[in-house]
């Protein structure tokens, strides 16, 4: 009787979870049948005229997540190392609690900050980057005259870059928390051994902590990437949607799958809904792959699947 109840509970969860995946796939099938392989190469999003695809939004999603991860990983690595290696003992407990709490701050709060505080101030940085690093293709912004001191910074607002910065701050606590847990487990014997051989603190970090924590660093980064890919509201508040592949990350306009869904679900026809489902499915599959890779890396590393 008891085992039957448990089995029922497990089956129920399996059914609910499976239903979500199966239902998404079924509903997406309509749209995928119409779009065919063009679904992966079309940039526009006009489902009702049959001209739609996820080329632009998927690239946009990946770009935002890339900016976020590139910024978040060094920040998290530094914070995690500070907490485990440098912070005074008494501050450590407090810092750990703070970082864990930060991981629970709702994303809408980050969106608010990004929109009302960061946006107006970071455009100057974006402009400086675009003028001085124009040789680096993603930083180039066409249609800007670097010699015109009066040119407005409007072209730098609502960009992939700004959305990426906000998402980076959002995922930093999560990534930090995972890295910190792994670093803290680095074997004391090896630390002491390194110190006994006359190693500096940096030496201990480089020869003991980082090699031990490689799995945690990669796993944490991938989990952060998964969160960054799926983030909706913070991105939606900042970005102004465009449906062309926008490689210039500093330039106004970008796109992401989740903000597309939030933008279009209300006015969608049944077929448009199916197209959104297909986009959602693509996003889900992407985060799924990222998560599985992350958990397998963490599980195989020396530090084990503790996180």
């Amino acid at each position, binding site marked *: 009787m008891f085992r039957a109840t448990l089995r029922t*509970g497990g089956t129920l969860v399996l059914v609910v979870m*499976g239903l979500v995946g199966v239902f998404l796939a079924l509903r997406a099938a309509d749209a995928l049948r119409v779009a065919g392989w063009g679904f992966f190469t079309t940039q526009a999003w006009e489902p009702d005229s049959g001209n739609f695809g996820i080329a632009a939004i998927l690239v946009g999603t990946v770009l935002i997540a890339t900016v976020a991860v590139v910024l978040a990983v060094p*920040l998290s690595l530094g914070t995690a190392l500070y907490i485990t290696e440098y912070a005074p003992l008494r501050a450590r407990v407090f*810092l750990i609690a703070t970082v864990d709490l930060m991981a629970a701050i709702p994303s809408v709060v980050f969106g608010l900050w990004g929109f009302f505080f960061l946006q107006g101030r970071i455009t100057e940085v974006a402009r400086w980057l675009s003028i001085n690093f124009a040789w680096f293709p993603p930083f180039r912004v066409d249609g800007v005259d670097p010699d015109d001191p009066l040119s407005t910074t409007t072209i730098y607002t609502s960009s992939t870059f700004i959305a990426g910065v906000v998402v980076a701050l959002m995922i930093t606590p999560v990534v930090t928390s995972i890295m910190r847990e792994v670093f803290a487990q680095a074997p004391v014997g090896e630390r002491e051994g390194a110190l006994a051989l006359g190693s500096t603190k940096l030496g201990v970090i480089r020869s003991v902590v980082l090699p031990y924590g490689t799995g945690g660093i990669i796993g944490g980064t991938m989990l952060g990437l998964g969160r960054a890919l799926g983030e909706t509201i913070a991105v939606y508040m900042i970005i102004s949607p465009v449906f062309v592949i926008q490689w210039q990350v500093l330039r106004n306009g970008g796109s992401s799958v989740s903000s597309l869904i939030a933008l279009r679900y209300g006015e969608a026809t049944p077929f448009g809904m199916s197209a959104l489902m297909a986009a959602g499915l693509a996003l889900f599959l992407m985060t799924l792959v990222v998560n599985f890779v992350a958990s397998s890396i963490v599980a195989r590393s020396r530090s084990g699947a503790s996180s």
Partner: protein
Amino acid sequence: MTTTEIRETHLVPPGDDATEARRPEARRLVGGTRLADLLGLVGAAVGAVALTALLVTQIFPVASGIAFTVIALGLFVGLYALLVSLDERPVAVRDRVAMVVVHTLAFTVLLTIVFIVTFTFARGLPALVHPNFFVEDMSLAGPLDPLELGGVAHAIMGTLIQITIALAITVPLGLTAAVFLSEIPGPFARFVRTIVEAMTALPSIVAGLFVYATFILALGVEKSGLAAALAISIMMLPIMIRSADVVLRLVPGTLKEAAYALGSSQWRTVWQVVLPTSRSGLTTGVILATARGIGETSPVLLTSGFTASMNLDPTTGPMVSLPLAVFQFVKSPEPTMIARGFGTAAVLMFLVVLLFALARFIGGRTRKER
């Protein structure tokens, strides 16, 4: 395990019997800061600020506080490396630079996030000081009305109702599933575990889209608090099962074996040994999942819709939650509405912090008992 302890244990002052006999032993400071280190840090900081000021005002003008901070931090690390390299060996220089870089990164992160939180509270303060903000709804207050009118009581109630329904679904179901995973192992349990782990990757907006497409479009249920609660449940369920599964696996096998040896059934063992042993971990898992669920905007946006008035009935009509209310308020260009948005965000954060403190309290208490 900490490095401070290590330093004290292996750097014992060399014992020299002859000198020890002659004068009282002076404790050698191995940790402390030297004056030169402090001066080096201060000098590098002052130099960096001065150089940055020169750079951004005279050489290539950037009118942005963020740019100033970033350039100053970069210069600070460079100058400090230069200062240390004057009287230290390369190994020590690298060590010091690494120390400064790690501190800089950590303080950047901590200060930025503390700033985000204070920024939200500061901008929301004009709305938060009016008591009516917590007891009235927005049905009588328009965008142009002053902050003395209207409030977010409807969003607070909405959030509480939705999260209560979501918990009523996820706690029994999630715990049963987690107990199933640990008590009846086998190929089927492994399969369920894989699916649950896969579903933790489900983006919250897709959970919302699923409920929107099934309940609202296909079954014709109207947008309601119940639909939102279902969307939140789908999002919370895998998170909760996963954390509960981890905690349940930590229950010592000897305890279970002792229970079985005393002749108790599997049901009694789970109910009186396994669950009480892991109670604090389970509670922490539930509360953390709740904190995630409370802060989600997108599933509620899709499934519940926005309303300005109080709605206590989760089965009919739109029911707004705190994050959704924030999202709607700040869409308006009116300063009072934006202040309300920040105030609502502050209330939401306060709720999350409260839950978190609760989780810490429960989790921390039993760790000491153990």
